[in-house]
């Protein structure tokens, strides 16, 4: 009884139910939506968001926020793309190292500003959002890196599939999600991130090195944005200084919030975030199929975020009410 109740009030169940309902309703109108290929389309819409969402989840759990992910994605993708362009013949795998490394470095800068100067992350990352985007323009001289310069092996990752016609990058995204799951559930520092977000005052009393953990969290967010950056190059085959990663933070934060990560820290699950990302992907894939004009997309996203907030609140209130009954 209790176990059932606890499953029912879990956030993940709610999102899963929303995904199922949404799929059923859309499939009634458009049977094409309920096909393996459509699953592939949905999945192909998600890998970049999913990877960055893992980093954002950790940042939110630690009671911060990272608005600069889109610009970190853009800058690391640009540097990597330029490397491919200007050093032909360089091993394509090196791109991953470079992109992730640059992303981690940019994330560390965010973390350092937040911890050393004790600044609010929302403002710091708003500043670096502009700063990193500006740097992207400067290093690239406002030039796009064209398709022909992106190694074909890299591009093939978004197209060739090891199994079931599902391309490599989707497996990579799920691998990152699994790794994150392992990281938050099974490493000491992963648990410390949750402890830190759950009670920042008590954390140092239990030997949690707050500065280092915060730096780590921002560095991970940056590194994953860098990974998403090189995957952008793989997926779209170009890197553009103004478009690449622009507005990405909104998609990611929306997905993470829908996935049940609390902006008050301490709460969040990888499964919830994965489902949140998938729900967003379902909506994005279904709209053109239903012939809903792109102009409606913004309003729908806004409504989804607000609905997620309302659900969150009612769950929270039920929790409190339940407590009161138990105490009385």
């Amino acid at each position: 009884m209790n176990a059932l109740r606890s499953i029912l009030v879990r956030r993940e169940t709610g999102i899963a139910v929303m995904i199922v309902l949404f799929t059923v309703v859309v499939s009634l109108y458009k049977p094409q939506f309920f096909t393996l290929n459509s699953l592939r389309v949905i999945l192909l819409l998600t890998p970049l968001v999913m990877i960055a969402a893992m980093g954002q989840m950790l940042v939110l759990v630690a009671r911060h926020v990272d608005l600069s992910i889109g610009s970190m994605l853009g800058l690391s993708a640009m540097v990597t793309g330029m490397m491919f362009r200007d050093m032909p013949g360089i091993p394509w795998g090196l791109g991953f190292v470079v992109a992730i490394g640059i992303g981690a470095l940019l994330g560390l800068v965010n973390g350092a500003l937040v911890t050393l100067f004790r600044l609010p992350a929302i403002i710091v990352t708003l500043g670096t959002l502009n700063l990193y985007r500006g740097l992207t323009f400067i290093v690239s001289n406002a030039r796009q890196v064209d398709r022909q310069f992106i190694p074909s092996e890299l591009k093939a990752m978004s197209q060739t599939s090891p199994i079931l016609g599902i391309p490599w990058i989707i497996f990579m995204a799920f691998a990152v999600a699994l790794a994150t799951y392992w990281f938050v559930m099974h490493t000491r520092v992963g648990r410390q991130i949750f402890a830190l977000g759950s009670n920042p005052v008590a954390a140092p009393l239990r030997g949690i090195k707050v500065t280092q953990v915060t730096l780590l969290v921002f560095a991970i967010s940056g590194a994953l944005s860098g990974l998403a950056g090189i995957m952008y190059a793989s997926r779209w085959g170009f890197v553009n200084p103004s478009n690449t990663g622009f507005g990405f933070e909104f998609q990611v934060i929306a997905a993470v919030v829908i996935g049940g990560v609390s902006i008050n820290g301490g709460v969040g699950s990888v499964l919830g975030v994965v489902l949140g990302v998938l729900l967003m992907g379902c909506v994005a894939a279904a709209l053109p199929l239903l012939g809903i004009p792109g102009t409606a997309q913004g309003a729908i996203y806004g409504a989804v975020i607000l609905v997620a907030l309302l659900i969150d609140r009612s769950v929270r209130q039920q929790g409190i009410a339940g407590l009161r009954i138990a105490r009385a």
Partner: protein
Amino acid sequence: MLKKSLIALAAGLALSTGALAQDKIDIVFIGKNTGNPYFDSLTKGFVEACQKIACNFEFVAPATAEATSQIPFIEAQIQRGVDVIAISPNSPDALNQVFDAARAKGIIVMTVNGDITGNESHRDLTILPTDFTKVGADQIEMVGSLIGYEGEIAILSATTEAPDQNFWIKGMNEAIKDPKYAKMKLVATVYGDDQPEKSTSEMEALLANYPDLKGVIAPTTVGVAAAAQVVQSRGVAEQVNVTGLGLPSEMRDFVKDGTVKAFQLWSPYNEGWLAAHLAVDLKAGKAKNEVGSTFEVPDLGTITINEGNSINTQSSLTTFTAENIDQFDF
């Protein structure tokens, strides 16, 4: 008091720089946004022209292509006192007021590679890369030749209100009525908003909704690349022919691996080249901005100013195929 002296100071400065630049005219080209590869080639036309003739050229552009982002840049050029503003407008009407202000100062305002349709009275002239009335028919013919003049086709456009694309789509709808295309059917027109993600989703939806689709026309550089990528990754390039308007630099791979057999465009370089020459000639009085008047441009020959003070750099579209694509470096 302070204000007066500031104005005097500014006026003095403006005079002195104006005097310096007397022999060369100042041209500024304002692109839709920075980092847009299309304008790299167009800008090159300006730059190389100004190396040969009497003009100073500068390129500026806002970071994003939204309707109002170009306004501060136009205001700045007015303040700088340039002679000619060439611009690819981000909005057909939000710039009217600031254009009027520029023209009131004697600056020639020319729109390049896109016009402010419906508000033509707010600019001096427009330079378009080709005769837009023919684009629709050319594109229908192209897709027809690729699919053997038989089967379902669809259009993947930019935004629903993009004026040029809508004009061409209108042309396509007219052209397809020709008996030659009787076995072809235009089943859908969708809009990818010139974003790769959105264009991809729309293309995927087209393939899902119309399993018998034979051809897709994407008359926008972002759309055609996204559509090509979808058929490439789905491995359906043999069944679905993607064509449209694209940049050789973005399409080269798709053409070479056979995903796209042919697509079209014009020369952005020539737009810049022509605009710079025309600007110098107008300022020097060698050309007149009147419908029907003509002027000479090296390499392009005699150019006529058409109805609505509109100029075309080439009469019809260039077609790019695997054979010729390596001849183009933009």
